[in-house]
């Protein structure tokens, strides 16, 4: 029992803060890992990350006019995602740069909103919360919101699944069939925007990228087909979040300050270690395996 207490501090499961954190963490992990799989497949990590920063712009604007920040996050992410897809820049490099310019503009707006926030209201503590948000400060009233957003996001992907997969792996094939990959692209970016909004609020805007990309990238190195990719990816995401929450809860009496280490630090470190662990070579049938893994996962192209 004593050893058990050493791993899980007393009161872990009876605290409502923790149960809320676990529930929201679970929903976020599932949605992020599914959306993340397509993000990695389509090499759109930068857009995935940009949306989390652009979300902050919406959050800051919402805060400025006094509505719940989640509205700001969701609305601006949907808008930005649709905008980038409608621009329809096909060249990968150009698309990347365009994302950067849009992100730069959005960040500029964020700095203005935050400036106005801090000059109109008291301190800059809210700023930090917006940027580095913590899963322990999510209000339990948001649970329903998260449930609804999770369902919509997953539906966006499930409904267009086949077309999206084809558009991600073999866009030329789709063009031969005279079908535009645009619809699948827009519905994917909507799903991505929602997933990123959720994770921005749960683990902070700047760290949602870890949850989006890490588990999916690790899963692609391990799995042999799409179904197992989704399975592994969501398992890795859920484990990282749960373990991160647990460690952060435990860290309340760790040195040096005894006020707890941030969840996001633990989550990111766990995800990073899991990703590194996928590079440890398998002792048996190593040769066979490399040939069978998905061509999109590992190679540097």
């Amino acid at each position, binding site marked *: 029992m004593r050893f058990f207490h050493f791993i899980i501090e007393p009161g872990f499961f009876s605290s409502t803060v923790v149960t809320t954190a676990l529930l929201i963490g679970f929903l976020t992990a599932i949605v992020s890992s599914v959306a993340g799989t397509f993000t990695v497949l389509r090499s*759109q*990590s930068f857009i*995935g990350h940009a949306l989390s920063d652009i979300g902050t712009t919406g959050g800051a604007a919402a805060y400025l006019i006094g509505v719940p920040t989640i509205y700001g996050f969701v609305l601006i992410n949907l808008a930005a995602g649709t905008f980038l897809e409608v621009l329809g820049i096909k060249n990968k490099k150009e698309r990347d740069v365009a994302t950067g310019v849009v992100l730069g503009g*959005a960040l500029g707006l964020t700095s203005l909103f935050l400036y106005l926030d801090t000059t109109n209201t008291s301190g800059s503590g809210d700023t930090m919360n917006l940027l580095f948000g913590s899963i322990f400060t999510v209000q339990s009233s948001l649970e329903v919101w998260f449930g609804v957003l999770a369902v919509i996001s997953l539906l966006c992907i499930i409904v267009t699944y086949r077309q999206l997969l084809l558009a991600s792996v073999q866009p030329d094939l789709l063009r031969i069939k005279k079908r535009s990959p645009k619809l699948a692209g827009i519905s994917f970016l909507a799903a991505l925007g929602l997933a990123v909004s959720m994770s921005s609020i749960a683990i902070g805007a700047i*760290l949602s990228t*870890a949850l989006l990309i890490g588990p999916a990238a690790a899963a692609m190195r391990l799995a042999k087909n799409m179904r197992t990719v989704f399975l592994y990816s969501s398992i890795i995401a859920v484990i990282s979040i749960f373990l991160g929450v647990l460690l952060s809860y435990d860290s309340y009496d760790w040195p040096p300050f005894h006020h707890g*280490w941030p969840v996001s630090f633990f989550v990111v470190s766990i995800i990073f270690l899991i990703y590194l662990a996928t590079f440890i070579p398998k002792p048996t049938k190593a040769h066979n395996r490399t040939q069978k893994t998905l061509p999109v996962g590992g190679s540097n192209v």
Partner: protein
Amino acid sequence: MFEPFMINTWISASIIALVSAVVGFFISLRGQAFIAHALPNGAFAGAAAASLININPLFGLGAFSLFGAATIGFLEKRSKKDVATALGFVLLLGMGALFLSLTTQYSQQIFSLLFGEILGVSQSQILPTALLALLTLMLAVGNYRRLLYTSLVDEVASSKKISVSNNNFIFLLLVALVTTMAIPVVGTLLVFTLLIAPAATAHLVTKTPKTALGLSVGLALGSVYLSVALSYLSNWPIGFFIGITGLFTYTMGHLWIKLAS
């Protein structure tokens, strides 16, 4: 606007705009805007670490941007480029979150590292900025041709016996140097926008690398001067003006092409 205390601001703004435009030229050519975002924001962790152990933030920034560049370079050889950048980036961010939570510093200082306080540049900041700028420019000019090759087509470069992975590292090193140089003066946000927007616009509207490079420098200097002036007059954060100017010129660039064709 041109009082003695503003002289440092104009000098450091010019240096940073010049160097960012040159490095941004390669970033835009390679389509690696994510790197330009990841290293400055990630190196922010170094500033937090430096304030934790009470040393000059410049050392923290330098150490962490080099560490970030090395991590991304290591992962790039083993996975997709964007995935490598994302993972190296979040590793730095996670450490940053930890250091920030451990410091008891007033968050205003952190705010200024994020969004920049260019209107209060001190004399002592000019020398390190200028030295780092010189180093970066020498590295960029010395490797101009090699970088141009690898930035355009990896295959051509490897057929010319230019090592692609070495060049990728030189490129990452360039971004790390700009990061270290510019963050203490102008903040992470501004570095990112300066690295992306002028060069992106220049690439859109020009045909040869040399004119693109020249226009990139011109646009960067122009938008920085305009933003410093507007920020001085309105008291609003300079990052806002830089970001919006960048977005505006880029959109104009797209319109220009549409009209020309």
